């Protein structure tokens, strides 16, 4: 109850609904627009072709997000004629690799930060936090020199996995440490009395208990890697090694105007992450607002 708290039950919400529906339509318009381009079967930016002297209604037709005729041809050819399937595969391999490496490293580190007291503990946590403030471009130049010029890992999936995994560690560590802190220590002490080693406790007591948090962290890592654009665009300069984001931009960047492919590809790429996001957003909000500044 707030601004509208004086409305009682029985009082109509109709004006409010009108406003909300209008704003919601405005909000989802770009999405409807891209969907209708995807199903239009054409590469053009225009939903409908305008006649010579367009009337108001012709123009209204041109902005209505409904394709003139339905066709799946954009989806078909973007996956078969274009190398988009290959780019999706690259993205999938890189995102899964990032998730596995990043989450494993983050789990062990978060466990140590949560359960052990050792010199450098505070410094380590602070270092992780501060590293989140390093601006992307400041990291981009040295990373480019180190990975591409020194190690020759330009246009390779491995290079991108390494970079994504390490840059995802701090956020994952903070998330996981927060969760590990809530697991009562009694369980471990009981296991310790039974004679279990620290490694065993970690694997068979803590990790199973922390499964939900690990899953959420893993999904975040995956999503971040899947959606990343700048590093991929900088490191992957061979067309066959593009990731999906770089590939989508390739369709409509520069002088290329293949909006149909772009729209179909965007939908294929977005649908899984949009659902993932809707599922994860409540964890994200609490994690972010607790973590303070993050760039």
């Amino acid at each position, binding site marked *: *109850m*707030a601004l*509208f708290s004086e*409305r009682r039950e029985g009082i109509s*919400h109709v004006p409010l*609904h009108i406003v909300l529906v209008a*704003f*919601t339509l405005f*909000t*989802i318009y*770009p999405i409807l*627009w*891209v969907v209708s381009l995807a199903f239009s079967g054409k590469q053009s930016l*225009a939903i409908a072709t305008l006649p010579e002297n*367009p009337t108001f209604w012709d*123009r209204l037709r*041109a*902005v209505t997000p409904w394709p003139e005729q339905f066709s799946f041809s954009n989806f078909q050819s973007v996956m078969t004629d274009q190398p988009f399937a290959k780019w999706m595969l690259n993205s999938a391999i890189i995102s899964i690799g990032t998730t596995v490496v990043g989450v494993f*490293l983050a789990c*062990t580190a978060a*466990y*140590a930060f949560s359960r*052990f*007291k050792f010199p450098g503990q505070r410094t380590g946590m602070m*270092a992780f936090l501060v*590293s989140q*403030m*390093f*601006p*992307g*471009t*400041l*990291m*981009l*130049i*040295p990373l480019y*020199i180190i990975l591409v010029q020194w190690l020759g890992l330009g246009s390779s999936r491995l290079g991108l996995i390494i970079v994504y*995994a*390490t*840059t995802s*560690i*701090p956020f994952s560590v903070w998330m996981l440490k927060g969760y590990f802190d809530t697991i009562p220590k009694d369980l471990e002490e009981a296991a310790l009395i039974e004679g279990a080693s620290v490694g065993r406790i*970690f694997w068979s007591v803590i990790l199973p208990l922390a499964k939900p948090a690990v899953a959420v962290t893993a999904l975040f890592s995956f999503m971040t890697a*899947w*959606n990343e*654009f*700048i590093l991929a665009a*900088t490191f992957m300069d061979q067309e066959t090694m593009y990731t999906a984001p770089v590939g*989508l931009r390739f369709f*409509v960047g520069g002088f290329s105007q293949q909006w149909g492919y772009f729209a179909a590809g965007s939908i294929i*790429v977005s649908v899984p992450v*949009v659902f993932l*996001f*809707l599922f994860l*957003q409540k964890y994200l*909000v609490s994690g972010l*607002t607790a973590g*303070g*500044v993050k*760039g």
Partner: protein
Amino acid sequence: MSQNAPQQSPSAAGTVRASPNHDATAPSDPGPSGRSGGSQRGRVLVGLALALGLALLLAHGLLVRAQADRGAERAQRKSVVALLGLTDLVQRAGGTGDAVGAVVAGWPRPQGGAARVIAFSGIKLEASTFPEDTGDKVAPRRLSREEKPLYDRGQRLRAAVETNREEGGARKSEVESETLPSGGRLLSAPVEVDGQVVGSVEWFTPVLTEVDPISWTPALLAFLLPLAGCVAGVYALSRQGARVAVAAALFAAGLGGYTVYSLRTLDAELRETEEAVSAELRTRGETAQKLMAAHDLNAEPVLKPGVWDADAMRRPLGQLTDAGVPDAGKLAVRGAQVRGDAGKALGALGVLGLAVLLFIGMGALHRTVATAVEFRQAYAYVAPAMVGMVLLVFFPFAYGITLSFTDANLYNSSQPLSELWIGLKNYTDILGDFSFAKTAADGSLVFNYLNFYYTLLFTILWTVTNVTIGVTVGLLLALALNVPNLRMRPIYRVLLILPWAMPNYITALIWKGMFHQQFGVVNHVIRMFGGEGLAWFDSPLTAFFTALATNGWLSFPFMMVVSLGALQSIPGELYEAARVDGANRWQQFTAITLPALKPALVPAIILSVVWTFNMFNIIFLVTGGDPGGSTEILVTQAYKFAFERYRHGYAAAYSTVIFGILLIYSMVQNRMSRATEAA
């Protein structure tokens, strides 16, 4: 590996002192004069041995390499002298004919060496002393098909000479040298007659090892003598500080002694090289005079053997006088240069070794190792992540900062950073340039879009407008959705979150398409109501608007979700009570709703400011800085400097400034939140 050495035998007692958990090792300590005394002595000795041993090993390696370089230089210069001397004679003989054969035969060769002369006219092997060119293949003859590479090499040299002459410079090598699979070296030079390249001379020398191996004795002496001194000193002195001081002095003496020896060796080697080349030059000069007389060769211009000692462009090195005697002044200059380089390297080694010595001697290593062992489990769990972070986050960060003090760009990336060092110049260029706008002739203000302060102002404007829009729209929507008993609230909520859920690069590209001048939906709507479509990306203001619309669209859901969460946690009784007290709606909003929103909204705004400040994708993909870089924010500008103008050093400095701004922002924000908490 070797740094763990003191852990093992002489100093186990030290471990005991540092960490009481390791009592088990205590009984095995055989220290004769009390536990800590023995271990501390051992520490000093091990420290000195390690530091000095390492430093001397590296210094010896450097000396051996310098020696090998000098040897290679000597062999190369002697070969070039022989080659160019022979070429000189061949040219005087006209490049072809019997005299050429006679000169080649008469030119002294080292054991196993050989020479040949190619003439372009007729593709002929003019003369040769190679063992395979005997019998039916004896010169002069036409080159066979398999020997085409010889002819090609000659043509390459001719092209190089002509290019250099046309450009009036020295860009292409006029003397080719290559190492053959056998290890010998083959050099070739063009033959010029009357300004035309008419052929080439090739000179083969077998493997020559002219390097005197450097003896290990001096290094060993420089190692053992200080160590022996240190053993005596350690037992004579009782205070650990004094022992370490003695060890440091002995280290300096040992390395210093070896430095003196190295520099002397290098100097002698340099002199020897010049003398060897000079001797070669003089004997060959005399031979040339004799051959010229014997075969009645062209005596004009006067024979100047000094020019035979030349580089790959046939420019005289100038280390020897025209008569072929070492030039004392130049020798001194070169010697000083070599000594300076060597001195610098050895100085660095000294500092490094001293650090090792102090680290071990003062017991820091001990404590470090003890801590590492005591907390080994914790460190083992943290290590993988830490190593990854250090290698790929902290090291690149430090490297980026270092880069910002250099003039690094795409074209000089092979040079070491120390040679590109320009100090604070990048920073003064960025921060010291205040000419971000000037008044044009007609009185209007013209902005310099590349100027840092222009971009900074633009970025601040961008951040403030975006966050304002995001917070306003998000808050209003949250209030609307929070109306009790609102139907379809979950549906609205999910649909309104979609912009945040979409990958933002896709959002950016979609909006760029919607703002297309001819086919874009936005212009259609404008035309629908009788307006004219705009060229959105042609003026800074409209381009800014496109980016603002895009970012506003994708940033309000975050604020909405945060506000909605906070609103829903306000207990309804508070409003009931307020109403009972007669508060109106506005009073309820300011007294209850806003204070309840604050704890959630303030962190969200802080976060949102940083996000928007760094919102690379939207600017990069929607406006791309158009027109003319006017809608660039700081991070995209830094990217363009790095990857479109290839000024890595400048871009690194730019990024460091951005980092500074963010750091100040977060410090101010921290202090403010602490102040509000305390209040």
